[in-house]
């Protein structure tokens, strides 16, 4: 019999971080992507290099429940931290009284803004967000105070006893009104975060056929399943170690150091297991809070958000209001586009400037348009802060421009796919920023490929395949089928002159007489499978099957963010470059030993090979002289800032394209939608792991479907009305249809292996295709997403 006391799993003989009972200490266990289990090693004859669908190294841990996510961490004597948040979207703080909370039995600390030792401000692009609000709260849910206690319920009880005296102020909730001259300024510089202008071609163009439309895109949540979580451990000498589920360890570290007033060497970050991210972990959440509590109490402090708190604890996708006008000649050639976009950034800037940059620079869609005038505004309000989410500005723009494409095609009497193909970007096209596309851009081919895919059969008798499902709302009456198409595009990597780099350390050595590669980067694995890609690249470049992925932490240089579909490109590029440096040194040893000239030296299958000479020897023979280790910082080619008045410039290093065809059945009487098929064609440059690529495309497509028909954070007067999975709906397995995926591989000559970012494009075009299909079925305009039943069945 196993007996567990109040603090189970205490393993006094073990030092450091411990997992709960029966588990090994978390310190080694937090290496979910460490030494691969036998089943995860490539089998005999299997190279498991790039281009193969090799299994993930963390798969076994994840199916046995042993993989340690941030919320699973446990340490002897740890405390639980909770956050007290503002109930008001806009209020002045008159006073905060913590006495009663502090007196609660089991409470170890209650902290307020006065306890922030460094700069009480952080942010990805502007340090405008307080760690803990001092005198003003700008959104409902803003952190005001912290509690650490020996039980999470004790901490919550104590937090409820903190007395905050608020002077409630009227909230600014309309992003257009927020820019009015008489609107209250929410930040010292006013309410405008960024105004991006694109000016290309004729400023006053005319066209034979003109269509206009106003579109609204709702606020979407990343809804990653693993809540924000981490464990901060004081080092006893004034520093702290933070184990946290995040997307970019080094940008976290920079902001935490500023808030704590500590140098980087005193704040070490280690990636805990991440239960999905999708942009929502690019900003800080509990990071500084847990460190503050740990440093204050001298004890390890764990913080785990509930689902409700998660809705307040991370930024969301910007809701956007767009006015579009498009003109085309009577032969169906696009002449101009004008667009005005308002992106509601909410209370703090987060990544709003970059989201505005994307929405604007890609606001014309993947089409050749000679005359462009776009104004995109990112705005401060008292709504929940918005920032990064998969697709990042391109998602919102695509709902608008793809609706416009269908309207234009209808006005011209053209087939919507033909019209798109006639105007599609291709390699050599010039985009709205004047940038010439210098790698494949098969926009028309993607559309034609999804168009050619077989259509699903109609008229299943199974209730479960009808709108409303087992709700038994129809047996087929009132059901109309529609088909819609959309194509979209997205920049890969960080843009507009950002120094976008990654760092990789690769070591090749003998372990137990066999060559083993160790790869160390700080690139966050969030589920996408980068750890697999890192192994595959090492195997291909060094010809060694066993590759150990070191836990991600800040003891190696920055890898940049796991966002912008960039890690396979940029960290993949860094790992490749580090492998090449290691290989050069190994081959130098081969040449030193060489009694003869060897041409075409290379590594494969554990051997050193040369042209026409057969194996020169086993790799291991050349490692007797010691390990070889190289650390490389790798950059993609630089981008440029765009001109502030015209928006012209080489802003983006790479573009990625996807097209979707959606088939829907709509119950026109009840307004219910069943997506019957959602097929995609996407160019990925080169699929390093084909299975993972398809998984990204299917998952990304489902998130776009969600925004099209069900997902929206409902904000009224600055308050979130639906912060739960009961009221914020994400697609279930009944909502997502079969998805046929056509993966094209046209290599980008500028990218390592020719890869093109994969994760985001499917989230851009899937939603617009679904809405287009609903329009086709119903004849409704549907100018806002998500589409609700009343938009379909209500008064037109």
């Amino acid at each position, binding site marked *: 019999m196993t007996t567990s006391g109040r603090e189970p799993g205490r393993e006094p003989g073990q030092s450091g971080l411990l997992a*709960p009972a029966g588990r090994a200490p978390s310190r080694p266990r937090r290496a979910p992507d460490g030494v691969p289990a036998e089943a995860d090693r490539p089998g005999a004859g299997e190279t498991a290099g790039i281009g193969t669908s090799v299994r993930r190294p963390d798969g076994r841990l994840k199916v046995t429940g042993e993989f340690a996510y941030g*919320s699973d961490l446990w340490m002897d004597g740890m405390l639980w931290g909770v956050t007290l948040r503002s109930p008001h979207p806009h209020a002045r703080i008159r006073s905060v009284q913590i006495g009663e909370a502090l007196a609660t039995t089991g409470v170890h600390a209650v902290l307020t803004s006065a306890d922030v030792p460094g700069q009480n401000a952080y942010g990805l692009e502007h340090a405008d967000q307080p760690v803990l609000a001092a005198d003003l709260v700008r959104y409902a849910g803003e952190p005001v105070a912290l509690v650490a206690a020996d039980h999470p319920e004790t901490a919550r009880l104590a937090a409820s006893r903190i007395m905050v005296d608020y002077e409630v102020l009227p909230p600014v909730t309309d992003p257009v009104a927020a820019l009015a001259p008489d609107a209250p300024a929410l930040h010292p510089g006013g309410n405008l975060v960024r105004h991006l202008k694109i000016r290309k071609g004729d400023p006053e163009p005319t066209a034979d056929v003109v269509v206009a439309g106003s579109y609204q895109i709702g606020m979407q949540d990343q809804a990653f399943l693993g809540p924000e979580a981490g464990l901060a451990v004081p080092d006893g000498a004034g520093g702290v170690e933070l184990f946290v589920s995040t997307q970019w360890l080094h940008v976290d570290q920079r902001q935490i150091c500023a808030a704590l007033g500590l140098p980087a060497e005193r704040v070490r970050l280690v990636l805990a297991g991440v239960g999905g991210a999708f942009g929502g972990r690019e900003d800080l959440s509990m990071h500084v809070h847990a460190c503050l509590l740990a440093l204050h109490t001298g004890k390890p402090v764990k913080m785990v958000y509930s*689902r409700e708190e998660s809705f307040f604890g991370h930024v969301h996708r910007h809701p956007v209001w767009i006015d579009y006008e498009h003109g085309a000649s009577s032969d169906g050639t696009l002449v101009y586009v004008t667009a005005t976009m308002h992106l509601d950034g909410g209370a703090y800037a987060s990544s709003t400037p970059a989201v505005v940059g994307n929405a604007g620079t890609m606001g014309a869609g993947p089409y050749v348009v000679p005359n462009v005038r776009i104004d995109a505004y990112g705005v401060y309000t008292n709504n929940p802060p918005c920032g990064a989410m998969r697709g990042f500005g391109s998602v919102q723009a695509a709902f608008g421009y793809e609706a416009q494409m269908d309207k234009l095609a209808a006005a011209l009497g053209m087939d919507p796919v033909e019209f798109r193909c006639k105007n599609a970007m291709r390699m050599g096209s010039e985009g709205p920023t004047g940038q010439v596309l210098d790698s494949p851009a098969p926009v028309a081919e993607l559309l034609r490929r999804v168009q050619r895919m077989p259509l699903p059969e109609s008229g299943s008798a199974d209730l479960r395949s009808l709108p409303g499902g087992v709700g038994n709302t129809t047996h087929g009456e009132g059901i109309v089928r529609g088909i819609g198409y959309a194509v979209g595009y997205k920049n890969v990597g960080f843009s507009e002159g950002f120094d976008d780099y990654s760092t990789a350390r690769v070591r090749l050595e003998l372990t137990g007489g066999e060559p083993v590669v160790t790869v160390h980067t700080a690139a966050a694995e969030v589920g996408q499978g980068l750890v697999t890609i890192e192994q595959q690249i090492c195997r291909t470049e060094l010809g060694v099957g066993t590759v150990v992925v070191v836990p991600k932490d800040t003891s190696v240089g920055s890898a940049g963010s796991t966002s912008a579909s960039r890690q396979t490109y940029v960290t993949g590029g860094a790992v490749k470059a580090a492998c090449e440096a290691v290989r050069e040194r190994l081959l130098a040893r081969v040449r030193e030993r060489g009694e003869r000239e060897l041409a075409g030296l290379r590594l494969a299958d554990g051997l050193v090979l040369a042209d026409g000479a057969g194996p020169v020897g086993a790799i291991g023979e050349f490692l007797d002289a010691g390990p070889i280790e190289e650390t490389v910082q790798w950059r993609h080619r630089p981008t440029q800032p765009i001109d502030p008045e015209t928006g012209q410039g080489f802003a983006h290093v790479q573009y990625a394209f996807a097209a979707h065809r959606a088939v829907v059945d709509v119950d026109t009487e009840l307004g219910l939608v069943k997506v019957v098929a959602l097929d995609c064609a996407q160019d990925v440059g080169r699929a390093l792991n084909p299975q993972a690529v398809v998984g990204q495309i299917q998952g990304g497509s489902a998130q776009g479907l969600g925004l099209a028909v069900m997902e929206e954070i409902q904000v009224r007067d600055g308050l979130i009305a639906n912060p739960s999975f009961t009221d914020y709906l994400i697609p279930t397995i009944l909502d997502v249809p079969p998805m046929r995926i056509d993966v094209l591989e046209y290599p980008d000559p500028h990218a390592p292996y020719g890869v093109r970012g994969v994760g985001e494009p499917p989230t851009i075009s899937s939603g617009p295709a679904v809405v287009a299909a609903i329009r086709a079925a119903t004849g409704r305009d549907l100018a806002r997403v998500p589409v609700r039943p009343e938009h379909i069945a209500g008064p037109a």
Partner: protein
Amino acid sequence: MRITATVNGTTHQADDVWPGESLLFVLRERMGLPGSKNACEQGECGSCTVYLDGVPVCACLVAAGQADGRQIVTVEGLAAGGALHPVQQAFIDAGAVQCGFCTPGLLVAAHDLLARDPSPSEADVREALAGNLCRCTGYEKILDAVRLAAARLAAGPGGDGA
């Protein structure tokens, strides 16, 4: 209060349990079994699905006291010895695991489905897994995994059924 339950075939006891704690909390924080996941803690996502006396339940919705004296099987109990259950292996092989946070609950739900119905139709699989949210995969590879597991189970030990 004290909770005693048989979890994955072993008797576990937890003392000083606050009556408001869920079975999920006790499993994760007091019994050293964090495999069952805490994604919503209100019965919407299925990430905490465990067997309670042979019936799949959301452990977040079971008060710890209700589990006293009962039989529980969690994701940690699906593998026999060192060998993964075919459902677990199929999730890995089919690419049904990305971030993996939904995986423990889906594995229990799929394990239960295939125990009841060795060859479910696609509509049956979708209905059986409708209470388990996944945010990464779009569910296609989860369906693939269940089909693969069903085929392998039908082929019996040694058959790969693929």
